[in-house]
């Protein structure tokens, strides 16, 4: 048994023993669970992939004369201005003004909110254009100017949903090619795509949220951020394997961090033809090894984690909840899976390579004493289910 304080003391003294989630299994096999639990202080987990519920609050400071922005665009991407005068929220899936979207399908979606966030973090100069109705205290009605992230008072990433605990494997049973957020899916289940870091993924290494909760310090694209709430659509109460691995989406995290401290290699705008734009993020979460049980759970391997295979040709869009079957991540990583008796080629939208890089960067920061673990101030719920949107004909 170790406490957060004891682990932080070891981190501060530069003596912490830190392993990544892909190194820990062999280490525990070699040393034994009990000895390893005494020795290891932290296991680092990570993920890198598109996370559509991401965005940021920006504060521009006040112009002379002042403006209370009622509509605004950054690099021609609409931002939300229903806040105080010069605060805006920029969402990563917002399209650039004038983008034809899917008018001539599949649309290209070359630039949007995710790309603006990438450009901000990369230090590029961007245009702000804002309009206002004008007030006695905020008389200016229009402004066009150019800025970088350093000119802003705050650029705070606030992501309502990141780090899905597990995710679907997408196939297409229809007779035509479809374009989805899970990529291009060929007809008759010719290919499949998955999107999870599997054995490296944060919430798969802490399936019952014993150490990851509200208040946990996280590595958000290089910045030290934290979990500010349970993520939207958090549903800890999904079906699980006897070992506790969720067999579908399950838990999610709402994360925040200072964009000025982020690294551009881990903040990437992405375009999905026929679907839209998003933002890919690199996220690392340390798991403090408080006891043997916590350590045992970080030893999860790809073969122990099952992902549901879902038909995005019909079942997903119609929200039937039907699942074709389950495959494990070890099978997915071979590039081929069996679905309904036939071999299907598999690609990944989540980058294991980048996730591994994040896990090592975070481990190095902890070893250097630059990243302390934080105890959650409240736990994530383990029993909630996701509610659907019910279409009612009249108010109840």
């Amino acid at each position, binding site marked *: 048994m170790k406490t957060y304080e004891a682990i932080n003391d070891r981190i501060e003294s530069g003596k912490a023993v830190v392993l990544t989630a892909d190194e820990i299994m062999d280490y525990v096999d070699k040393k034994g669970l009990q000895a390893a639990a005494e020795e290891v202080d932290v296991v680092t987990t990570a993920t*890198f*992939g*598109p996370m559509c519920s991401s965005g940021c609050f920006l504060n521009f400071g006040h112009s002379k004369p002042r403006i209370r922005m009622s509509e605004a665009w950054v690099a021609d991407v609409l931002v939300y201005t229903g806040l105080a005068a010069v605060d805006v929220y920029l969402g990563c899936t917002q399209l650039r003004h004038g983008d034809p979207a899917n008018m001539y399908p599949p649309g290209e979606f*070359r630039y949007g909110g995710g790309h603006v966030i990438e450009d901000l973090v990369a230090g590029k100069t961007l245009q702000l254009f804002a309009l206002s109705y004008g007030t006695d205290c905020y008389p200016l009605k229009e402004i066009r100017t150019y800025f970088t992230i350093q000119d802003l008072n705050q650029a705070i990433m606030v992501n309502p949903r990141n780090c899905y605990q597990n995710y679907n494997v997408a196939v297409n049973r229809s007779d035509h090619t479809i374009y989805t957020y899970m*990529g*291009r899916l060929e007809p008759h289940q010719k*290919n499949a*795509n998955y999107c999870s870091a599997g054995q490296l993924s944060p919430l798969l290494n802490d399936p019952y949220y014993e150490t990851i909760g509200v208040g946990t310090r996280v590595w958000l694209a290089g910045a030290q951020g934290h979990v500010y709430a349970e993520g939207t659509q958090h549903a800890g109460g999904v079906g699980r394997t006897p070992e506790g691995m969720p067999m579908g989406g399950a838990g999610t995290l709402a994360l925040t961090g200072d964009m000025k401290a982020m690294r551009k*290699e881990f903040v*990437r705008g*992405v*375009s*999905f*033809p026929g679907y839209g734009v*998003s933002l*890919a993020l690199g996220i690392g979460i340390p798991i403090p090894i408080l006891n043997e049980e916590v350590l045992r759970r970080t030893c999860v391997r790809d073969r122990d984690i099952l992902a549901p295979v879902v038909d995005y040709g019909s079942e997903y869009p119609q929200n039937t909840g039907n699942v074709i079957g389950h495959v494990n991540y070890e099978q997915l*990583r071979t*590039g081929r899976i069996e679905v309904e008796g036939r071999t299907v*080629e*598999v*690609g*990944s*939208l*989540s*980058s*294991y*390579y*980048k996730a*591994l890089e994040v896990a090592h960067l975070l481990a190095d920061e902890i070893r250097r004493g630059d990243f302390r673990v934080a105890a959650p101030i409240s736990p994530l719920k383990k029993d909630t289910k996701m509610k659907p949107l019910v279409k009612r004909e009249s108010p109840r």
Partner: protein
Amino acid sequence: MNKDTVTKKLMFYFPKCECDKPIIYHLVKDHHLIVNIFRAKVTPEEEGYLVLDVTGTEAAIQGGIDFVKTFNVTVNYSGKGVIRDEERCSHCGYCVPYCPPRALKIEDSVTRKIAYNESECIECLACIRICPYGACTSAF
């Protein structure tokens, strides 16, 4: 084909003025090269590009290249019609099943790093259309 034959991937750049000349015809007819064109955009009155494999003896290929150079054509020996930006690539592996010749593949099963073998590329441009990160682009 004798044992001395080799295959080289080349890219020709044609400035505006050279696009009306039957250069490939002469490579086949006079220099005895086997030509396999992957991709071409050669339109009269516009600049043009051609990415091809040429097969023949070293001497014949050199003769063909010397012939091509008598025109105002630039020969690029690495045949880079498709350019992959290593820095923009996130190594997710999404492209791998979509690449018919497997020029893009997972190099190392532990790190899952993506390798691009340029000589395998047939310039189908599938990667350019599907890469979410825009890591692959075309020279033309």
